[in-house]
């Protein structure tokens, strides 16, 4: 066994400059895959981290003995949201919430770093005036969703009005006073939604990565085909051949995976800059943990090895398997049936289907595209080679028929991205979805018994703050709504009015219509950010995949190319054939994938396709074509170099 390993290592090292270049391409492919795979894994861990850190502000009622009362309210400054948490201890020595060194005493306030900074920056009558003067400390990172989050924790007496007030109405108004026995809490609805979106994004990123990684593995095998067949011919057992190839693939892949992990480490500061839910990420969010990294470092080489075994089957069965080139059997139509069957399941989905089911139903057609791809490429090849009039197209068509899987590998990444783009293009929320809500007039809900008293108080406070307003009471029933139409409509005046009205009705803040839409607007904005991120990752994979497969295909066919060139075939014809054998399947499969993606997104679509979606799609199509053409063009010098000295033998 050690002898075999030593031989494998020698063959790997002694592959010559071109052999090393080939191995280098595999290492590069695996490195990119690993780095992006770590990102896809980290995204989920990061959203889980945010959900965990936010849970203490979504209290659950005490089941045993209550130790404290907690109430949470959303307040606003400029166009940002502040989470205001009021806490009152019911017994001495109550455990402090996460991020605070001790339980806040009545009259104290603890600011998150971003809020503390903002409170210093803005005039006191616009923000700081809403809180007690005594700042006791800073809320730690472990209690914050993101570094820029605005959080204030106030200490109260248990009999303070705010701790006994009726909870405000509305889904995102916050949590009313609740007796709690600890700060475990539970994930908020928003956090769950973000986790679900994060998972969908991961699926959209991981599937092309797996395809790409598999292509990288087969790339090693393809290059070794000839040599391994020779080994079989001299009597190596199938077991030995498998061992050597897998060992070589695994060694190469492990090198790539380690480089990929390092690349990901270097990329963390870049990834943490992606703002979701109103802020960037902590560095630690994007670190998936030693175990996850080790698991990826182990899984990637294993998957590559497995893929290599599959690729080797033909050689192992027959030593002449690759020595003789025969017309390959046509792809089975069942591949297309699989795609159609997986698509048939999509209409069953509804917008509110369980997330696991949704992921499966989206993931299956996504994978099935990869199954149907080679079949379609083979069929395209037949059509093209039948209709070709010029040599370049004839060469391209025949090549597509000869090895549809190889041609598919070159374009699969972009086709997969087409699916993502189609899926997202349909889901992109339009900017007009929420409309332009009023950001100036402030509304305050009031128990109907206090309407007159609060109206007078509000009028007085607003004029004292220099923001005169007309105040009207609307609505009926137990809770009425006061609307203050401000005379000054600039952002500073609105915040002065908010500050002036703070505490007028315990547990309630004055909010504008725009404030109330802010969470929804934020989620829509975040879907947009997620879209761009997923597409960027997909394109990176797609273009890397196109470039690497293009280069390796030249290396694999260098003798044929050299001899063609020697017999006077112009380089343009060879390059033209290479371009055609990529662009023809790209056009058909890219377009098809976009349609499949849109079909899969249909159950989740909240509105008809909008301008933003169309623009996203068009940009994707343009980038896809440009990327693949560019990747192909980048390997043109390699083609020139392998054909520059076409002498087939040195003598």
């Amino acid at each position, binding site marked *: 066994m050690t002898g075999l390993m030593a031989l494998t290592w020698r063959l790997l090292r002694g592959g010559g400059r071109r052999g090393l270049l080939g191995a280098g391409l595999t290492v590069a492919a695996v490195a990119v895959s690993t780095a992006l795979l770590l990102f896809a894994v980290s995204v989920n861990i990061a959203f889980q981290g945010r959900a965990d850190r936010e849970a203490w502000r979504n209290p659950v009622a005490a089941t045993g003995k209550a130790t404290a009362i907690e109430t949470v309210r959303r307040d606003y400054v400029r166009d940002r949201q502040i989470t205001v948490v009021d806490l009152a201890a019911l017994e001495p020595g109550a455990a402090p919430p996460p991020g605070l060194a001790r339980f806040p005493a009545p009259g104290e306030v603890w600011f998150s770093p971003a809020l503390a900074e903002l409170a210093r920056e803005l005039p006191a009558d616009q923000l700081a005036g809403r809180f007690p003067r005594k700042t006791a400390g800073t809320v730690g990172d472990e209690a914050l969703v993101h570094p820029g989050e605005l959080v204030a924790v106030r200490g109260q007496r248990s009999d303070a009005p705010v701790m006994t007030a009726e909870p405000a109405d509305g889904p995102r108004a916050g949590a009313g006073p609740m007796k709690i026995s600890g700060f475990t809490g539970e994930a908020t609805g928003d956090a769950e939604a973000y986790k679900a979106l994060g998972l969908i994004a991961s699926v959209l990123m991981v599937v092309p990565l797996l395809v790409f990684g598999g292509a990288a593995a087969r790339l090693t095998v393809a290059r070794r085909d000839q040599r391994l067949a020779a080994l079989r011919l001299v009597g190596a057992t199938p077991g030995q051949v498998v061992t050597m190839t897998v060992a070589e693939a695994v060694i190469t892949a492990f090198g790539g995976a380690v480089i990929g992990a390092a690349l990901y480490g270097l990329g963390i500061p870049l990834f943490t800059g992606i703002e979701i839910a109103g802020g960037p990420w902590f560095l630690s969010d994007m670190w998936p943990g030693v175990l996850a990294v080790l698991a990826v470092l182990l899984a990637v080489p294993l998957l590559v090895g497995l893929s290599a075994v599959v690729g080797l089957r033909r050689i192992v069965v027959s030593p002449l398997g690759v020595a*003789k080139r025969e017309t390959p059997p046509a792809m089975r139509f069942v591949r297309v049936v699989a795609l159609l069957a997986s698509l048939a399941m999509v209409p069953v989905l509804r917008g509110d289907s369980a997330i696991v089911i949704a992921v499966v139903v989206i993931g299956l057609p996504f994978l099935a595209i990869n199954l149907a791809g080679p079949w379609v490429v083979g069929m395209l090849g037949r059509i093209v080679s039948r209709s070709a009039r010029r040599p370049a197209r004839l*060469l391209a068509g025949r090549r597509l028929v000869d090895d549809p899987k190889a041609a598919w590998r070159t374009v699969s990444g972009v086709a997969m991205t087409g699916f993502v783009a189609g899926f997202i293009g349909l889901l992109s929320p339009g900017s007009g979805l929420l409309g332009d809500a009023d950001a100036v007039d402030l509304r305050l809900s009031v128990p109907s018994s206090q309407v007159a008293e609060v109206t007078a108080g509000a009028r007085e406070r607003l004029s004292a703050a220099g923001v005169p307003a007309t105040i009207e009471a609307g609505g009926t029933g137990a809770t009425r709504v006061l609307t203050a139409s401000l005379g000054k409509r600039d952002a500073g005046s609105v915040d002065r009015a908010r500050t002036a009205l703070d505490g007028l009705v315990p547990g309630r803040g004055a909010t504008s219509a725009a404030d109330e839409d802010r969470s929804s607007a934020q989620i829509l904005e975040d879907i947009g950010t997620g879209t761009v991120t997923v597409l960027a990752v997909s394109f990176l994979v797609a273009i890397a995949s196109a470039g690497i497969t293009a280069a390796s295909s030249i290396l694999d066919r260098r003798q*044929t190319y050299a001899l063609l060139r*020697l*017999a*006077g*075939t112009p380089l343009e014809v060879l390059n033209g054939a290479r371009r055609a054998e990529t662009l023809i399947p790209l056009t058909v499969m890219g377009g098809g994938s976009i349609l499949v993606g849109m079909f899969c997104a249909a159950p989740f679509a909240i509105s008809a396709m909008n301008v933003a979606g169309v623009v996203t799609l068009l940009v994707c199509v343009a980038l896809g074509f440009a990327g693949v053409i560019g990747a192909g063009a980048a390997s043109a010098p390699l083609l020139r170099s392998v054909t520059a000295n076409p002498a087939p033998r040195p*003598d």
Partner: protein
Amino acid sequence: MSVVLEGTGLVKRFGPAVALGGVGLAVHTGEAVAIMGPSGSGKSTLLHCLAGIMKPDAGEVHLLGLRIDAMGERQRSALRRTRFGFVFQFGQLLPELPAEENVALPLMLGGVSRADAVRQAREWFGPLGLGGMEGRRPGELSGGQAQRVAIARALVTRPAVIFADEPTGALDQSTGHDTMRLLVEATKHNGASLVVVTHDHQVARWCDRVVEVRDGQIIPGRHGARPPAGHGAHPSAGHGAHPSAGHGAHPSAGHGAHPSSGHDPRHPVPGQGVTREPATQILPGVSG
């Protein structure tokens, strides 16, 4: 006979190694020349320089009076496509193209329509003993059949000179003989000249004369500047009579009859086929 291709004073170095040290060679119309020599002697380099594949460091190459070594790569490439044909040991056929498209490819590269190119290509299959193989892919052909397809591909553009680099190197002796005979015959019937690089004396015997290269030099006295065969014994008498002499003994007579002589009417013995077979059989599209 007029000189079709001539190299004079050819020098080629690879780093410190001198592959060609001032070599001259003239090839006449319709002549078959074998370039022989041990490995590393420079024989392939000489072929590459003559064929416009490599630029010599010094010296000149003329094709029908046209200096080709000074041309740019694009022009030389076009020249190789139109005026030269190539047959190699193996690997020159595109594995994904059926045989007939492999043959048609050079015509298509020259601008002939696909239908015409394939039609012209098919005409070569019968005379070369490849009837019925038109739609097969190279992987489905035997080594000898693949070489015959390669010969058809080299000749289909009706080039002035065919260059063959160890054309039988990957074949067994009997198939090699057949292939060589077809190569020589078909080339001559097309009025083309043939330059073969080989280290196999059996192969060289099919040619009109043998040029021996050693250490980058042509060995004097081992080759004649005599016009091609058909007029008498080969100058290098040590190799025996020339196979195509017509009135001389067959070179392989000492070993017995030529493998295919008398067995297969499609594979005439060189020199006899010329008279026995209608020219159209190896010269498609040209009336005999």
